[in-house]
């Protein structure tokens, strides 16, 4: 068997024409989950706090706001958008696309491709690769790719400390209009039973010892190394790097294993203060980096989705970023907007209290 690690490169150069973030207002401190379920037997907190959506928020409403922020930066005619793809594992409907409602709300309907992607925490980056293909083949001028989740953890489970809400939207378009050019992507995917949720089940299950080395680290390292090797680069050629962030430690460790310094990952490491936003995690980190990056900065992004796989992107910032990034709210604006809640309010906001 020969391994083919050729990068995915569009025949027409593509990039990010607009980007937008969204993080809901409410924060549940990890110590509140600990107080409820661990008590004296606390095993330590994986993050400080996580972002929780309000009673009237879901993947559709959050996607609409992120996409509107991306549209403000892109300043394009929504009628020129030819695809709206949204990756999430918490779509509000089991059957009825989130993407059609989002497309309608941003004025992109009806001349569009629209679909909901599913691949655990990498569904959003999968949508980005598809958008690169559609624009890179010149079939479309612009395509919208979104990754957003309102993740749920089983009460008392380790995932309840971190399962959070938030995400980002990107308008992919021709490189010469882009505020950041995507040189290439590379994906590494295997059948790995680290995490799943069966139909009609509310909470996910995880394959205990599978979550760390065979899943998260293996896939991110393989995708990251292939990207570095195939593009003839090493960690020092990148200004910034961002990895999927299910907690604080995993992304710090995987960054170090790939040769990145703490300084390179700091601006994109948001999990300590907003939690694991699943399909939103790596790309929300990318928006926080774009908010502070300078023209010429090179960024490595590697997502991870359970099941399992990773998408890596090699991105270079252009001078158009400086003119356009102040046209919408920044990721840190949303993070600074913060109202702390207790476990009871969290239980109500997340539908854990039955009214009938």
């Amino acid at each position: 068997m020969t391994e083919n690690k050729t990068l995915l490169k569009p025949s027409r150069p593509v990039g990010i024409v607009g980007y937008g973030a969204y993080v809901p207002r409410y924060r549940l401190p990890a110590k509140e989950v600990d107080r409820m379920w661990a008590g004296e037997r606390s095993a330590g907190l994986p993050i400080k706090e996580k972002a929780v959506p309000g009673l009237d928020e879901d993947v559709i409403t959050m996607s609409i706001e992120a996409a509107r922020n991306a549209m403000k930066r892109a300043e394009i005619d929504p009628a020129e958008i030819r695809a709206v793809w949204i990756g999430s594992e918490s779509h509000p409907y089991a059957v009825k696309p989130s993407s059609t409602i989002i497309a309608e709300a941003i004025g992109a309907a009806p001349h569009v491709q629209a679909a909901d992607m599913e691949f655990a925490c990498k569904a959003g980056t999968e949508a980005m690769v598809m958008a690169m293909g559609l624009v890179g083949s010149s079939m479309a001028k612009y395509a919208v790719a979104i990754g957003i989740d309102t993740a749920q953890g089983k009460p008392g489970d380790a995932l309840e400390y971190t399962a959070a809400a938030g995400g980002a939207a990107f308008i992919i378009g021709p490189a010469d209009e882009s505020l950041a050019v995507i040189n290439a992507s590379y994906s590494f995917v295997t059948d790995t039973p680290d995490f799943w949720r069966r139909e009609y089940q509310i909470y996910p299950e995880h394959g205990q010892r599978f979550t760390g080395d065979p899943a998260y680290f293996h896939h991110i390292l393989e995708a990251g190394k292939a990207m570095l090797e195939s593009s003839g680069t090493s960690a020092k050629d990148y200004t910034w790097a961002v990895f999927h962030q299910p907690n604080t430690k995993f992304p710090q460790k995987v960054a170090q294993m790939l040769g990145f310094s703490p300084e390179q990952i700091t601006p994109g490491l948001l999990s300590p203060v907003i939690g694991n936003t699943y399909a939103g995690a790596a790309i929300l980190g990318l928006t926080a980096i774009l908010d502070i990056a300078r023209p010429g900065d090179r960024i490595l992004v590697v997502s991870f989705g359970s099941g399992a796989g990773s998408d890596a992107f090699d991105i270079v910032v252009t001078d158009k970023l400086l003119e356009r990034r102040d046209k919408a709210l920044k990721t840190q604006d949303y993070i600074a907007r913060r109202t702390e809640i207790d476990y009871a309010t969290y239980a109500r906001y997340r539908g854990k209290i039955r009214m009938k």
Partner: protein
Amino acid sequence: MEIPRHWRLKQQRYSLVGEICPHCQVKIFPPRDVCPNCGGEANTPYTFSGRGEVYSYTTIYEAPAGFEDKAPYTVALVKLDEGPLVTAQLTDLGDTPVEIGMPVEMVTRRLRQDGDERGMLIYGYKFRPAMN
């Protein structure tokens, strides 16, 4: 079940799409095809900026059917920058006190479900404290 009505109202509900009068330029919301200012025919679509301020407000403790699970919540008359007054729920207040004149901005949120948990989800405009 009011599915046809929800479908017909989606543009104005999702994105505050009203009308502009071609005769006197007055901006109209909700759309009604007749200008309340000059009486002329007006059916040119106009998307509002979503910016405005609280004109008046009240807090609902005894919520009507379909909204029980949201109580208590605040409903406001919002004066849009372009002129019209709209009634809508305020959201994302956190611990922010509501005041008359408070700048607000439109967001699209889940308003309710049509009937029980098997019904369609209805999305539409609300207003939150302005973030910028």
